[in-house]
Structures are given as C-alpha cells and as structure tokens.
C-alpha cells in the first residue's frame, strides 16, 4: 500500500472528501432556493402582468429580500457584513450577539459540569443517593426544555435576577445530565482487581477516589463534556427566546422570524452551528492533550 503523508494525506483524506460533500450540499441548496422562491416571483410577475424568462426567474429567486430559503451567497454576505464589516460593539454585529450567547453557554457548561460531577460522586459513594437521585435526574430530562425555559427566566426575572445567569441556568439544566451519567459510569469503571489492589494497601475512601476512580473516569468525563458543551449552546439560545431578549443568537433568530428576515435567521443559525462545532473541537483538543499526558491516548 502506498502511504500518503503530510500535506498530500491531508489533501486526499480530508480536504477532497469534505470539499466534495460541501459542493454537493451547495448545489442542492441553490436548487432548493430556486424551487422554493420561484412561486413568489411567478406571483409577482402575474400580478404585474409580465412574462419572465427562466434565467430572469432564477436570477430573481436568488436575490430576494425575504426569500423563503436564502441562497448560500446571501447568507455568506450577510455573515460577512455583520461580522467583519461591523464594529463588534454594534447591536447588528453577529460577533457581539455570538459573544453574548457564548458567555452564557460557557458559564452554563461550567456549572453543568461541576453539578454533573458532584452528583456522580455522591451517587457512586452512596447507595441511598443512587436510588433516590438517579430517577429524578432522568425525569428532569424528559421535561421539554422549551416548557421549562420560560418558567426559569420569568421566575428569576421576578426576583430580580436577569441577564446572563438565568440563561446559563438553562444550559446547566441541559448539560449536567450527560456529565452526571457519564461520570457515574466512569467512576464505576475501575475493575475489581484495581479496587482490590487499593484494599490490600488499606487505603481510605478518599485515596481510592483520587488515585483510582477519578483518573479512571477522565476519558468518560471528556466524552460527556463534548455532548454537554454542544447542548449548553442549545440551552443558551433557547434561553434567549422566551423573554424576547434583545441580544444573543437566540434573539437574532427570534427577531428575524418576527420580521420575516430569513437571511438574518439563517446567518444566526450558521453562526450557532459554527460556534457549536468550534466548542466541541476545543473540548476534543483538550481531551486529546490531557489523555496523551496521562498515557491513555487511543
């Protein structure tokens, strides 16, 4: 077998396949944009009692102000306009809104991770807590977040807490779950022999935790943190919707839909997706570094 190295490997194993997929998506997207937006143009033409040629039709469907489905280049140029071309302090800057959402995502993710780990530690060390807490943890996730979010925001607003914290709380509500479940599994992952070994040394429960259970659970922790960080972003966006928040990607989505600004909606959606991908990749990167240091890299 011929083995590809360096740039050539990157080109053939990554860039080419990903590029092909992206190209196919873009082509399909243009196709759908024309299809979905065509009706509006035909109606317009009919109303104005004019005929339009196919090429005119296509051209117009891809440059509408409020298209049903914006074309890729419209979204790209909107994103360009609202990131690079705007001051980041501007209320129209996506960077500004992205930062608002990111900060509550990160706060919520941090609180969710701490809460998830604490719950897991409690559950692993106490049979009673295992039986009493675990069902509630699972039930908590069966309640739709769209129902919970307004309640949390409104109640906290009523007692004078607003802004970052209530939104972060919704992220916490979503993100503690994968961490708790993953960490319970991770803290219980040491095999009997590893536990027996600690027993032969007459080690304390704290020593068993710090020297065995905790390091053994690290790979599990990172796996759940990858899920948790993505879900935290969803939580933050959801948290920006119910009160008609004025800032954040969620607010952009909401105001976009109030005023039929589909291009704005789509660019907010894309920013959210990119943000999620970057966050997950960052956690993954930290995970790789830590696991390599610990000698546990796969």
């Amino acid at each position, binding site marked *: 077998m011929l083995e590809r190295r360096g740039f050539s490997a990157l080109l053939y194993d990554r860039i080419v396949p990903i590029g092909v997929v992206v190209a196919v998506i873009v082509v399909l997207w243009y196709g759908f944009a024309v299809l979905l937006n065509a009706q509006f143009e035909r109606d317009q033409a009919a109303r104005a009692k004019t005929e339009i040629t196919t090429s005119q039709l296509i051209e117009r469907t891809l440059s509408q102000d409020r298209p049903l489905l914006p074309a890729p280049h419209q979204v790209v140029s909107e994103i360009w306009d609202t990131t690079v071309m705007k001051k980041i302090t501007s209320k129209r800057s996506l960077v500004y809104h992205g930062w608002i959402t990111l900060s509550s995502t990160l706060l919520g993710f941090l609180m969710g991770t701490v809460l998830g780990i604490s719950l897991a530690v409690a559950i692993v060390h106490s049979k009673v807590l295992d039986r009493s807490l675990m069902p509630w943890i699972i039930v908590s996730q069966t309640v739709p977040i769209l129902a919970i979010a307004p309640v949390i925001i409104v109640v906290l607003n009523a007692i004078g807490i607003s802004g970052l914290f209530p939104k972060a709380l919704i992220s916490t509500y979503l993100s503690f779950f994968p961490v708790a479940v993953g960490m319970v599994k991770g803290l219980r992952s040491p095999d009997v*022999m*590893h536990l027996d*070994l600690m027993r*032969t*040394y*007459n080690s304390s429960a704290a020593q068993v935790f710090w020297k065995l259970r905790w390091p053994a659970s690290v790979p599990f922790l990172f796996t759940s943190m990858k899920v948790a960080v993505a879900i935290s972003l969803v939580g933050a966006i959801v948290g920006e919707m119910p009160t008609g928040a004025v800032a954040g990607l969620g607010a952009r989505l909401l105001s976009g839909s109030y005023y039929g600004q589909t291009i704005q909606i789509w660019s907010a959606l894309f920013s959210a997706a990119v943000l999620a991908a970057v966050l997950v990749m960052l956690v993954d990167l930290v995970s790789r570094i830590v696991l390599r240091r610990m*000698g546990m890299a796969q």
Partner: protein
Amino acid sequence: MSVVIEAKGLDLTFGTGEGAVHALADIDLSIESGEFVSLIGPSGCGKTTLLRVIADLEKPTGGTISVNGVSPEEARLARAYGYVFQAAALYPWRTIAGNISLPLEVMGMSKAERQQRIAKNMELVNLTGFEKKFPWQLSGGMQQRASIARALSFDPDMLLMDEPFGALDEIVRDHLNEQLLKLWAQTKKTVVFVTHSIPEAVFLSTRIVVMSPRPGRIHEVIDCDLGDDRPLDIRETPKFLEIAHRVREGLRLGHSYED
C-alpha cells in the same frame, strides 16, 4: 520459626441455595515464617479463593484463620502482605515508576523515600530505565515484573502471588522464577504462590500444597527439600523429578474421584 498463617477447618461457600458454590472445604494449613509454599491444583479448586481469604479479600463462611497471629482483616489493615494478581493490574494512567509509587503514596511516605524505593525495586526486577514508560509500552513479562516490584516496594514480610507468571512464555518464566528465588533467598520473606505448573512449583517451593476440586480441599502437602541453592538445571536431577512425579500423582488422585 514462627507460624505466620494458620488455618483450621476453613470453609467457604459462595452464594446460597441452588447456585451455591462450595469453594473451600475443611482447609487445615499452617505456614511458617520464611517458607515458600505453592498451591497447585486443577482450575476451579479454590487456589485463588484461599489466597484471597488470607488477604482478607474474601471472608470465610466457616473455620478459623489467623495471619501473623491476628485476623486476616487486622493483618491487612497492618499492611502485612503484598499481593500480586494473576494479571499485572497496573494503572494505565501511571508510569511504571508511578505504579510502583502507588502503595508508597497510600502509606504516606515522603517523596525522597519513595524515589529511593522505586529505584531499588525497579533494579531488583531489572526494569531500570523504564521508569517513565506507561504500562502499554511494556511487554507482558515486563508489566508483571513491574507489578512484583510494586508489591515489594513497601517491603512487606509476606508475598501472596496468584499465578504471576501464568501468561508468560517458558523462557521469560524461567528467568523470572530464578529472580524470584534469588529474591526470596535474600529477603527470607514468606511466600504463598499459586501456580498451574508442576516444574515451577517444585523449583520454587519449600512445600507444595496439592488441592482437589469440588469442594476445594487440600489433597496432600508435599515437602520439597531441594535446599537453598537451586540452579535452573536442578530440574533434570533425579530428586527434582521424583518430587515432580509425586505432585503429578497427587494431582491425578485428587482429580480421579470426580468423573
């Protein structure tokens, strides 16, 4: 010489009712300080279970047992023994030096003390130079040697070893047998050693306990008085072969009445 392990009428049944397994029945065994005693017998005859009872990793359901004159639990709490499992059971996130350091950390030794003991024991098992390697970077034999160094690191008077060389090839096994024998001769620790191999048992032991299964009991105890000086080729001497033959006979007799 003082008695280190004393078991009388020891009995252990796992579970109850239909699924109960009678793992140990009526075990009488007395082991003196400085002895090297091997437990040998067919699979499932309770060798591991007996070793685990001595280590207080399993509680007997009948009879009495004392270790160092006290209960196995008190002996364990006093860190009376080092236990070597059938698998190396190294912690994958610790380097080899880190693994050997584990019991020393648990026992609260100073860093200087730990480093000195790590160096000494790594040298003892011929692993000097591999301090910073992680377990997966070592061969199975080297991992097992590291686990022996770990058991020796806190200098317990007693070693409990459960088929430590079971998964290794003959050459490595011979080599480790020699090293273990040398170590035992130097330190005069009490060793209880589980094995499936007759030559290994005869080569290493001062006494061989032949066990038989269902329920696990002691079939015969064979003295193995080959003296302290045992080069590898002692295994071709008539005396060695004669003892090996007796162990084999014992195993056969112990086995015969069941099928």
